[in-house]
């Protein structure tokens, strides 16, 4: 291997001076954003988009809101959705029948029991199975297992209740699936605090995720 021919050009990556890539020109900025969201179907954060577009997050945010508006006013079948920590292009909900047909999927279904269980966990998290059972008046084991399997809830340690049962919280996938930006964006439970002033400390109204004693 020592007798390399003279015409061998040494390989060098990264040592060459890379030309600096700037942001897209202003007239193409929104289009570039749209293209990025199309090219990567994951939920993209404003930071990721601003890195790709060599622009400030605030610039990206402004353009995202503009793009969201554009999809709605343009009669497009695409919507720009804010879900969890980022943004994603999704098809318009009014077109679900036909889109499901072309995707060849059975629509995602959640039973009444699953939705109720999910609601209790979303508003009371972290919460033990015992409390969920108590609120719903039925054993939620089967439903809870299904929600865990679907990744909509997860166990987050043990509660201080007797026996230290596992406590459960919703996951980012829950936010993604329901198109919710953050738990604090959930609508408030109607009059929950006013309803039972003596009992208020037993019910987490808002904000979410805080423990009852805080």
């Amino acid at each position, binding site marked *: *291997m020592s007798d390399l021919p003279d015409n*061998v*050009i040494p390989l060098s990556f990264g040592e060459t001076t890379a030309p600096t890539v700037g942001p897209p020109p202003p007239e193409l900025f929104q289009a570039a954003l749209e293209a990025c969201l199309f090219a990567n179907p994951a939920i993209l954060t404003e930071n990721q988009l601003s*890195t*790709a577009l060599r622009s400030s997050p605030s610039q990206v945010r402004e353009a995202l809101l503009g793009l969201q508006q554009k999809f709605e006013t343009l009669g497009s079948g695409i919507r720009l959705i804010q879900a969890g920590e980022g943004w994603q292009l999704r098809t318009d909900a009014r077109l679900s029948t036909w889109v499901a047909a072309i*995707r060849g999927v059975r629509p995602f279904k959640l039973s009444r029991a699953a939705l109720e269980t999910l*609601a209790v966990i979303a508003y009371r998290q972290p919460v033990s199975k015992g409390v969920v059972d108590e609120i719903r008046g039925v054993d939620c084991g089967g439903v809870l297992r299904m929600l865990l399997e679907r990744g909509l809830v997860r166990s987050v340690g043990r509660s201080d209740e007797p026996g230290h049962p596992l406590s459960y919280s919703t996951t980012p996938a829950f936010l*993604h699936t329901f198109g919710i930006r953050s738990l604090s964006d959930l609508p408030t439970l109607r009059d929950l605090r006013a*309803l039972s002033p003596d009992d208020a400390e037993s019910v987490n109204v808002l904000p979410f995720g805080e423990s009852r004693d805080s």
Partner: protein
Amino acid sequence: MSVAVAVSMPLLPAGVEPAVRTEVYDGPLDLLLVLIRKEGVEIRDVPIARICDNYLEHLNRLQEIDVDTAGDYLVLAATLCQLKARELLPRPESVPVEDEPDPREALVQRLLDYERYREAADALAARPLLDRDMFARPAQDVPISEQPVEANVDSMGLGLIYAAIMARLGKPEVVHAVEAERLSMAEAVRWLLKRLSPDAETVFAELMLSLPDRRQRIFLFLSVLELARSGTVELRQVLHLGSIRLRSQKAASEINVDDLALQAVP
């Protein structure tokens, strides 16, 4: 979790599909809420005696109810019966009515709480759900690159890099699609003898390298062994793994190849 309540229906003649009306309840609280709504009253004003009777009546008609679920329903039935009994009992005169806590309070509170969560569940269900109402493009595991790769190379540069790699790898061996060459041992021996002399040594490796083809080299190797076996050629190796030197014992002209009992080579 849900149980169906089959509303009693008359026996139908064979072959006639029964118009089955079933109501599905998600547990005892759900059933109780439905009953209260049927009465058209507020939860706070729930008429315990009547609701209790309705509830028990429904419970009797519960079909396909498993043991676990039945327990949940029965606990509430017991609570309702207890409340009803308390209502029917005469109040002690000594305690003023307004001072007495409403025995229904705990149950009412549970029902109101439960109703709030049901509303929250409705609100969740009303949202456009991913993969039910809205669809995203299928996930492809596209890595999100924080620092995009910048290959600072144009097509010419790419060509040069390719050439450099190929040069490092060395020239690819030319692969012939040749019909089997009819080499013969006799031919190989003659070729070898021409290159040997009694007066000088010939280095085996040089002979090998002078032949480009692998098959030719095999024949040369076999020829050397053959001639050494017959004593026509002397092999000498001074050092371990050193070069092997060949010297013929007679001049090439004195050797009759046909006299050598050459072994057939497949």
